[in-house]
């Protein structure tokens, strides 16, 4: 996507020159071609390193909460990221007027693990053009289909276009099919209880409690996480099953009505643990019960932060 990167660079250049923003959060090239890094641009010279392609796997909204409220931040957002930003605005983590969202309609993030599985670890070059991705492995060019490499959560994405962006680079894409995620959940629910638990157990027990899922998530910005508490200690601190299961259950549940299904947690996990099947279920429930989707605007409170007397009909006596 060299054209998009150029356009993006021009845009950011303008923002920095006009001093509309103090810092722009975007991606830059790294030494390893498969791993562009989040980068923070404050002056024009650095902009040479700017990069944007399907491998930019982090959710940049994650860095928003690190800045004081009076910092004017420019941020490159895709569909999920823009919704995370909106959710953070609702939670008063940064004022909207000090944000400038540069929106990019997202064709989906590529899963590095899927690429490596098809080639091997030592990928030395990468380029993409439309549906085609080509990587250089052991000196040879390997052509791959983009659709085969999309991250699982991007395959289920319903909102690829940024919401509330200040500027949109590129043409908006058609919305995704929301039934895909529902079908995936229904498929899991159709398993019997023991199978569901066995799956959960198998995923949770590989956890090494490095908390990469937490740190990669824009909505996990608590200064003190429930697992960090020493008194009272809420969960086991070790890697026993009780400890890791509690972590996975509560981490996911704290995201109810706040998660945008960006899948950054899953991409960050060093042990390849599946996590989105948990948060997708919660998101789907929020949609079905409360008709709420996270981050579709920047003023609706999530269901658990609000309540309604109409709920009283649901009290079973």
């Amino acid at each position, binding site marked *: 996507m060299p054209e998009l990167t150029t356009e993006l660079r021009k845009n950011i250049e303008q923002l920095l020159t006009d001093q509309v923003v103090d810092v722009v959060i975007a991606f830059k090239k790294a030494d390893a071609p498969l791993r562009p890094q*989040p980068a923070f641009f404050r002056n024009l010279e650095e902009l040479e390193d700017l990069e944007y392609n399907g491998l930019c796997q982090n959710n940049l909204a994650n860095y928003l909460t690190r800045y004081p409220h009076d910092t004017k931040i420019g941020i490159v957002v895709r569909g999920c990221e823009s919704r995370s930003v909106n959710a953070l605005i609702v939670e008063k983590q940064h004022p909207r007027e000090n944000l400038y969202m540069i929106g990019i309609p997202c064709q989906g993030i590529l899963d590095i693990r899927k690429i490596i599985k098809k080639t091997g*670890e030592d990928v030395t070059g990468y380029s993409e053009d439309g549906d085609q991705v080509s990587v250089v492995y052991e000196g040879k060019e390997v052509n791959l289909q983009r659709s085969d490499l999309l991250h699982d959560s991007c395959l289920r994405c319903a909102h690829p276009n940024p919401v509330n962006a200040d500027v949109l680079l590129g043409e908006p894409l058609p919305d995704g099919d929301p039934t895909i995620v529902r079908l995936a959940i229904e498929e899991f629910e159709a398993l019997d209880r023991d199978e569901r638990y066995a799956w959960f157990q198998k995923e949770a027990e590989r956890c090494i409690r490095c908390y990469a899922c937490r740190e990669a998530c824009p909505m996990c910005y608590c200064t003190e996480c429930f697992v960090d508490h020493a008194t009272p200690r809420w969960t086991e601190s070790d890697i026993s099953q009780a400890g890791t299961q509690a972590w996975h259950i509560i981490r996911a549940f704290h995201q109810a009505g706040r998660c945008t299904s960006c899948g950054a947690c899953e991409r960050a996990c060093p042990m390849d643990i599946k996590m989105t099947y948990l948060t997708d279920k919660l998101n789907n429930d929020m949609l079905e019960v409360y008709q709420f989707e996270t981050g579709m605007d920047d003023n609706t409170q999530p269901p658990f932060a609000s309540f309604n007397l109409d709920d009283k009909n649901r009290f079973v006596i």
Partner: protein
Amino acid sequence: MMYILEKKNVDQTLSEWSAKYEVYTPQKVEAYSQFLPFTESSELALNEPLNTRYPPKSLFLPQSEVMLKYNKRLNKFDEIKILPEKRIIFGIRPCDASAITLLDTVFDTDEYQDPYWTERRENTILVGLGCSEPPSTCFCTTVGYGPFNQDGLDALMTELDDVYVVEILSDKGQKLFSNFPASSKDQEQSVLNIQLKAKDLMEPAFETENLKQTLDQLFESDYWSEIAESCLGCGICTFLCPTCFCFDIVDEVQRNERIRNWDTCMFRIYSQEASGHNPRPTRAERTRQRLMHKYSYWLDHIDKIGCTGCGRCVRHCPVGLDIRAMLRAASNFEREVVNVG
């Protein structure tokens, strides 16, 4: 002395050993490999291009370990003694084995001996497997080790067509392999060639000569906040690192146990004091601690770099932070500062 272990006999050999020893080998878990006890149904992952994802230091310093069981009402406690059990770790890579010798200087010194560590070390035989084709993310030669480094190993295997040629490096290793057929002169020569070739494949990733001085000078500089700006502050780099050894002792009051967990300097609560003050308040100080510990403080203690170049932190950082690039940047940063000054 060198011996031959045929590839087709590996399974049988391991099951013979497992009668007398607990045998650990790299095995496939999902898309990666991890050291697990060998059983008949194990799916071995010896010749993976990459090292195991979870470091084998966990076999000596488990991520979580019970140290005491106590009873508050009776006011007494039982210390947990580990049962000395003979073990073989088969197929450990040289970087991980040398990392264990580095950790010996922490857990087994003249002053202090960690009984859990020493007990396990004494009863374990390490059979290494050298890396004929080191991946580009590895940098063991840069930090003074190599793809066929012998530190800490009792025997070192080199893959040669359909056999492993075993170099014996200690008495323990000699005992284990004495019944195996000896290798021919030709084979020994080819092994030597493979080893040299593997070493040549690896280019130096950064300068180590004045690295310590460079980092020491940068201690107060902005360099750290620059490189740590994108750091998430997760524990991947340290938990997967074979030489990181920090631990945290915790009382699990609900089950009356005192346990020891891995800890990491990348977490905020690592240095958080009870008063609420945190001497390493941001990710910059924490990243500084991680890098300085490996490339400066270890040198103060034992005059060796505390990194064996296994490349796990490079491969698995979720934001693509590369320790090699960070150290190169450190050297350049200093030059810039000096030039401007």
